[in-house]
C-alpha cells in the first residue's frame, strides 16, 4: 500500500485514550508509526522543532491542559510550514459549536471518540485509507463529521 510506514501523531492528555489508540493501531495491522504528545504545549514544541519529521495525519484532542486543541489548530494554520498538515479532530465532544469552530479553522475531519474498541478500529481504518485529496479541499461541511456506516 504505502512505501513507508504511515506517520501518525496523536495529541491527547488522556493516558487511557493514548493506550486505546496505540492498541487499535496495532490491531488494524497497517504499517504505522504512532507518536504521542501529552498536551498542546508539547505538541506545538514538537511541531516547531526543526528536526521534527511532520506526521502524515495529526489526531488532535480538543480538551487539553496548557493549550487546547482549538488553540493548537489556529496556531498550526497560521504557521506556513504546518498549515497543510492533515488534521483530524479527535474529541469526546460532539457539540455543534466545536464541530463548527474546528471546521471553520480548517480541520479536515471531525471524529467523535467512540465508546467501543471495535468502533475505534473501524474509524482508524477509515481515516488512514481515506482519499485525502477529497477531504483537503476543505469545502465539504457534510462529510466533515465522520460517521460510521
Amino acid at each position, binding site marked *: 500500500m504505502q512505501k513507508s510506514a504511515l506517520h501518525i501523531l496523536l495529541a491527547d492528555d*488522556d493516558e487511557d485514550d493514548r493506550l486505546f489508540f496505540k492498541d487499535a493501531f496495532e490491531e488494524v495491522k497497517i504499517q504505522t508509526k504512532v507518536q504521542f504528545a501529552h498536551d498542546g504545549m508539547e505538541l506545538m514544541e514538537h511541531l516547531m522543532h526543526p528536526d521534527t519529521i511532520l506526521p502524515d495525519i495529526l489526531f488532535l484532542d480538543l480538551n487539553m491542559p496548557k493549550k487546547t486543541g482549538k488553540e493548537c489548530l489556529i496556531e498550526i494554520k497560521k504557521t506556513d510550514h504546518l498549515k497543510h498538515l492533515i488534521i483530524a479532530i479527535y474529541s469526546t465532544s460532539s457539540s455543534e459549536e466545536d464541530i463548527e469552530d474546528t471546521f471553520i479553522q480548517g480541520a479536515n475531519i471531525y471524529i467523535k471518540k467512540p*465508546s467501543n474498541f471495535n468502533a475505534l478500529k473501524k474509524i482508524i481504518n477509515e481515516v488512514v485509507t481515506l482519499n485525502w485529496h477529497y477531504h483537503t479541499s476543505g469545502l465539504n461541511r457534510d462529510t466533515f463529521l465522520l460517521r460510521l456506516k
Partner: protein
Amino acid sequence: MKLIPNFNSPRALRIIFAISIFILLFISSVSYKHNRDMQNSSKSMMHTYEINIQLERLLSFVKDAETGQRGYIITQNSRFLAPYLFSRDKVNRSFIALKKLMADNPKQQKNLKNLFDLIIQRYTYLEGSLKYSNEKTYDKRKLDNCMFGGRIVMENIRFQIDEMNDVEKDILQKRQKIYQSEISLTPLFSISLFLVALTLILLSYRQISNDIDRLRVSNKKLLISTKLMAESEVIGAFSTWQWDLDTNKMVYSDNQFRLLGYPPNAFVPEKDTFLNFVHPGDKRTFSNLMQGIIDNKQLPIIYYKVIRKNGEIRHFKSIGKLLIDEQGSKIILGITFDITEEHFQNIAIYERNKELEKSNKELASFNHVASHDLQEPLRKIQTFISRISDKDKDSLSESGKEYITKIGTSAKRMRILIDDLLLFSRTNTTKKEFLKTNLNDLLKKAEQELSEILLEKDATITSEMLPKLKVIPYQIEQLFINLISNSLKYSQPNVLPEITISCTKVAAAAFPNLLEQSIKKYYKITFTDNGMGFDPQFKETIFVLFQRLHSKTEYPGTGIGLAICKKIVENHNGSIIADSTPNKGSIFTIFLPE
C-alpha cells in the same frame, strides 16, 4: 374636545354697549333740547300774555280816567276826579312794565313809543276838556274840540294796542310753528332709537347669558380636570411646578409639597428652596443644572436624591420644558417624579438579572460538564467493557460474562440519558436563529435520519404539503425526529406503523385557551399514527420532563423526547397537544405561527 371655549364676545359686547350708550346719550340730549324748547315756548307764550294783559290794563286806566272826567264834567263833583288823578301814575307804571317786556323787540318799542305819544295826547285833551268845561273858563267851541279830538285819539290808542297785540300774537305763532316743526320728528325718532338700543342691549344680554353658561360649563370642566390632575399626581407620585425665569417666582403643585414631606402650601417656594432638599451628594450637579436651565432655557431628564422633612431619602426624576406665554414671559414647566420604588425595583431586577446571568453561565458549564467531563469516563468504561468482552471473553466465568453485559447495558443507558439531557438543555440555551425554511425539507431530513429504523419497522409516512415558515431549522427537524420516532417506538406489534401528517391553516381565535392571541394565524400540523396509543388522562403529563408511561424494561427511554418537543414548539411561540385512543393510535398536534 376643545378645552378652552372661544370667548370672543367681549369685543362684540363692548361695541354693542358703546353703541347703546351713544344712542341713550343722543336720546337724552334730544329730550333735553326738546324740554328746553318747550320751556322757551311756554315762556314766550307767558310773555305774550303778559304784554297783552299789560296793554289791556293800560287801556282800562285811560278809560277810567276818561269815565272819571266825564262824571266830574256832568256833576262837577270833585269825587269823580280821583280815578283821573290816580290813572296817570298807573299808566306810567304800566309803561315801565311794558318797556321792560318789549326790550328785546325794537318794532314793539317803536309801537310803544307811538302808544305813549297817543296817550299823552289823550291826556292833553282830557286836561283841555276839564279846563273848558269849568264855569270860570267855559268855552263851548274849545270843549267840543277837546272832546271830539279825545275820541279820535282814543280810537287811535285802541287801534295801536290792537296792532301791538297782533304783533305779539304773530311772534307767538311763529315761535309755535318752529317749535311744532322741531318736535314733530323727534318722538318717532327717539322711540325707534330707543328700540334699537333696547334690541342691542337684549342681544348682548343673551350673548352674555350664553357666555356665562359656557363659562360655567368650562369652569366645571376645568375644575374637574384640575382635581383630576391633583389626584393623578397623588396616585402617580409626581408633581408639577412652574418657574418664571423673569421674575424667579416658583409655583409648586400641592403634591410637590407632599413629595417633600410637607402639607400643601406649607411654605412659599423660591428659586433656591428646592436646593435645600437635594441630597448633599447631588447638590453640586443640581445647582449646575439650575444654572443650565437659566442659560439654556431647558431641563433635560435629571435623576437625584432628596431628603424629606423627616430625613427620609427619596429618589426623584425631573424634566422640564420652556414655555413662552402670550405676554412673552419665560416659564419653565416641570414635572418631578418620585421614583424611589422604581429605583429599588430596578436594583432588584438588576440583581436578579445578574443572578440569572450567573445561573445561565452555570448551566452552560453544566453543558460542558455533561458533554465532555461526564461522557469521557463513561466512554472509557464502555471501551474497557468492549475490550474485556472481546479479548478476555474466554477467561470469564458465566456470571462474570453476565455482569459484564449488565454493566454494558447500564453504561449505554447512562449514555442515552446524558445525550438526551444535553439535547434538552441545548434546546433552551443555544442561540435561536430563525430562518425561512421549507418544512418539507426538514421532514425529509428527519426521515433520512430515521431511515434505518423506518426500514426495520417497514413504516410508511404520508404527508401533506407543509408550509415555508420562519423557524429554527435544526430544532424543527429534531421535533419531527422525536415525534416520528415516538410513534415508531410505540407501534403495535404485528401492525405496520403508518404515520399521517396533515397541515391546515387556522385562526388563533379558534383556540383561545391554547394559542397566543396576538398572533392571528397558525399552521396546525398533526401527526396521526396507528400505534398502541395511551390513556388520554396522561395527555398532558407525557410532555413533562422524565415522565414515562411505561417501565424502562418494556420500552427503553429517558422521558425527555416529548419534553424536548414541547420546548421546541414553545421556542417558536407555538403549542403542542396530544390525544389518543388506546390500541387505535395517537394524534400529536403542533401549532406554529404563520
